């Protein structure tokens, strides 16, 4: 108690307050917090280089597959037309010309646009039901599935980055 009557320094104040805080325990978190922290932070933990390479590699494969599949689906008709043009330009030009002429004649003869659309739909439907059409449809479904799988791998990581 004599220390009260001598000149004190900041160090004395510091020591006295430290002594007071010896009686004050830390605030403790709930027992569930640790498990929650481990589960929530686990996706953000650094990964080993080999694992990281594998993840990056697999994502590249998935992304590449999606891009190539989509490109094929979009480019196949164009490639077919272009190839046909180089093989026999006359066939392509005649086909396009006949198609345009038929369209104009139909429209001039009073065929309704809805009728044309209905006929086109029927043709497309039957094409899809053919073996080749089914193959194209399956390709589309496969490409979409790959895209979804790729997104499901990427999206949680982006959420953790917020």
């Amino acid at each position: 108690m004599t220390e009260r009557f001598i000149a004190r320094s900041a160090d004395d104040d510091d020591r006295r307050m430290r002594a007071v805080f010896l009686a004050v325990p830390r605030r403790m978190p709930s027992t569930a917090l640790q498990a929650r922290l481990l589960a929530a932070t686990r996706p953000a933990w650094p990964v080993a280089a080999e694992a990281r390479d594998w993840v990056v590699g697999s994502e590249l494969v998935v992304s590449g597959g999606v891009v190539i599949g989509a490109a094929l689906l979009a480019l196949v008709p164009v490639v077919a037309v272009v190839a046909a043009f180089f093989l026999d330009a006359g066939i392509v030009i005649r086909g396009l010309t006949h198609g345009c002429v038929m369209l104009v004649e139909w429209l001039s003869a009073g065929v309704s646009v809805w009728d044309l659309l209905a006929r086109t739909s029927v043709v497309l439907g039957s094409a899809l039901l053919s073996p080749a059409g089914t193959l194209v449809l399956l390709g589309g479904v496969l490409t979409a599935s790959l895209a979804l799988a790729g997104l499901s791998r990427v999206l949680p990581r982006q959420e953790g980055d917020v």
Partner: protein
Amino acid sequence: MSADSGRSAPAPSGDADLVRHSLAGSAEASETLVRRFERPVYNLIVRMVRNEATAEDLTQDTFLKMFRALPTYKQDLRFSSWLLRIAHNTAIDHLRQRRLLTVGPTEDDEGEERDPLDTLPDLDAISPEQSSVRRELASAVDLALDRLRPDFRAVVVLRYQEGLDYEEIAQVLGVPLGTVKTFLHRARRQLARELGAAGWGPETTPGTRP
């Protein structure tokens, strides 16, 4: 510093190793980092935001930020100080968003006849066996601490519960050393005044405590 170390004990040498192993992909090291620093991080945050559920959310945010920033950690700062800085900034951001970063009551030392620090209880007069008195004192300090400004609370917790020195506190808070000393000085005085008003004077003994 670790959750289980003494208040002013030096940091265990394992922190730097843990960080290195965590960065190398060791899940065990990452898990140990979480387990080791969960309590000091939570303690600092809950003292600042004064809400347990919010403090747990912010503790989680702190660890997520820590792991994302771990590759940028430089060892010129102790890992515990670096992590507590993230925790402090997270708590400050929360208080700013909620507009809770208000300036609490500050004392004006001028014109004060008696040094409030004279009213601090003399812990030497309370034997270790008198644990009930210590519990009462802890409760009184808790209440007094809650009445401090958030930045004062942070500096007091870092100094007296986490055992950081002035330099480290300045690094954690991102303020000059002089500001830390000023904050501590004012915080101590306000705490002492609050404790004195609560009946914890220098003559406090088990028999005289109201």
